[in-house]
């Protein structure tokens, strides 16, 4: 029987893979993909707890808020990435180090 722990395992696995993405990518959009994986892992947690530990749908509401804010963040983040590409001709985060001392 599928219980809460199965969904928590899926959530932890996706979170850890998103963390690996954020830590090792040099492409700025790759890092944003890792952030999206982390947000999806949190959403799976919310909805799984709403099903297995709750009698109302607050978890679903929080998941919808997370999706809304992830959309706003992705839009702004990708606009910034495109601005960086326009200025530097690259989106390698190791090459755009103008602020480094």
């Amino acid at each position, binding site marked *: 029987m599928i219980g809460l722990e199965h969904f928590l395992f899926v959530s932890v696995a996706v979170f850890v893979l*998103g963390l690996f993405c954020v830590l090792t990518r040099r492409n700025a959009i790759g890092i944003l993909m890792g952030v999206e994986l982390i947000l999806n892992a949190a959403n799976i947690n919310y909805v799984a707890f709403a099903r297995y530990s709750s009698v109302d749908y607050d978890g679903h509401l929080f998941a919808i808020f997370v999706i809304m804010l992830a959309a706003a963040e992705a839009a702004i983040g990708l606009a910034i990435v495109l601005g960086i590409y326009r200025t530097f001709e690259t989106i390698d985060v190791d090459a755009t180090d103008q602020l480094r001392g």
Partner: protein
Amino acid sequence: MNDLSVGTFVFYLLAAVTIGSAAGVAFTRNVVYSALFLLGTFAGVVGLYAWLAADFVAVVQLLVYIGGILVLTIFAVMLTHRIADVRVSNRSVGRIPALAVTLGVFVLMWRVVGRTSWNTVEPRPAEYTTPAIGEAFLGNYVLPFELASLVLLAALIGAIVLSRGATSER
């Protein structure tokens, strides 16, 4: 033998698709392949939401994440992808320490999550969640709902201002 039901098999299939696609996002060198594996991850998550009887959240995920965020990500990848140097743009030094840290975090999180005795209730039969979510959005959760729409408006204006570019400087 009532443990091997269709629901259990479908869950394992959806979990495999989700975790496998997330692994594809993390370990592929080509960023275009990563974007397509991200599509697989989002689709697996839609299936998991549907398995959990979260019908409204599943459709919101499909429309907003796959239909909005993923399309935007693929646009950005295509606009910034240098076809000539496909090998340069996606690796970084420090893969082994990152793998060690990641495995450490995974072990730590799984020990904490696996050992906690969560208060679980028996899942109720599946029902339509849209009426309850709608009533909550306009009832108890009306303030976060309105603030989130303000955040989306600010993000929209900000993205337009950021993408206007240097050609229209005054």
